[in-house]
């Protein structure tokens, strides 16, 4: 039985099941031709992968937190962020209510040693 750790999404079997199609979409973005097709019509691309309406909206809105909540694995979600030219530090800011600059500064100051 797993204990919950506050502020810490754990990508477990049920999460992975929930996010399965969305994560497949993210993985497909490794390839340039898929990125182009996605950019041309994001909604249609989401439908092709069978995303749920909530997942579809989260992807189109670039609602990174919602993507995680709806079963996204951070390593997969990151493929979409990369496509948008976003860094992992930008995502870190999104998840923690900081700007990218603030998040980078926190990391350079030794990381968030206060939240562990």
């Amino acid at each position: 039985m797993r204990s919950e750790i506050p502020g810490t999404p754990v990508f477990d079997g049920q999460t992975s099941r929930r996010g399965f199609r969305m994560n497949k979409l993210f993985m497909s973005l490794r390839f340039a031709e898929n990125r182009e097709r996605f950019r041309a019509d994001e909604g249609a691309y989401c439908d092709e992968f069978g995303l749920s309406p909530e997942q579809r909206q989260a992807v189109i809105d670039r609602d990174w937190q919602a993507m995680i909540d709806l079963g996204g694995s951070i390593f997969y979600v990151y493929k979409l962020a990369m496509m948008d030219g976003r860094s992992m530090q930008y995502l870190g800011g999104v998840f923690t209510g900081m700007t990218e600059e603030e998040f980078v500064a926190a990391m350079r100051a030794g990381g968030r040693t206060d939240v562990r």
Partner: protein
Amino acid sequence: MSAEVIWGLATSHVPSIGAAMDRGKTEDPNWKGLFDGYRPAREWLAEHRPDVAIVIYNDHANGIDLDIVPTFGIGTADRYTVADEGFGKRPVPDVIGDPDLSLHLLETLVDDGFDLTVFQELDVDHGFTVPLSVWTPDPGDAWPCPVIPLLVNVIQYPQPTAKRCYALGQAIGRALKSYPKDITVGILGTGGMSHQLAGARAGMINPEFDAMFMAAIESDPAKLAALSREELIREAGSEGIEMIMWLIMRGAMNERVRKVHSHYFVPASNTAAGLALFDNRAS
């Protein structure tokens, strides 16, 4: 005759470490501290080239997908292509494998009760190539020796326990001893140190835990093998749990090892980066 582990290298495999090297930024103020710290290890490694290396790593949505998630996998190919992770391939050589040693490990480990998944084809991502770059910054046309990938699921819960990883390492150690050729082996355990990429704790770093882990991996790995998944995630972050891969490396080495060099640096993007190089010929 046997395959003898001559060294073990624990190192982070953060993609930005590879990117900093590929883009010539290792002298940038934000990176110099990390790469300066690598130098003594790299110099020692350059003088101790093994016949084969084993890289224990995890894939990050590049070589394998979530439809099939193996707990432990081993490559048996004679060549592994560097993956295109979505921004072009890293400008590093493809990897030459050693199928004979792979199949020896596979047969011995399966007999020993480890339920490996066999990969005959595998693209290797930054989890694999960044440690090779940490070891060998300028490989030229080829890495210093053939390399065997050993894959570990650290992304999808339930990951193998720390205890199981340590036991696998020990079994690898035994398997190498029974190899019917005299060769030398370097073994790399990759990932870590503390980091968490998502959630309200994103950016968490735990230097005390990292320091404990760095000390114990040398002198008391059994203590680390007793950590539960929950403890690892709590102390090292949801992605820091990947340090269980260091235990596989450590298990394959002798009880006593000699630390050649270690280094700890924050941050490599969102991560605490660690390196520890151990000489297995402690005597």
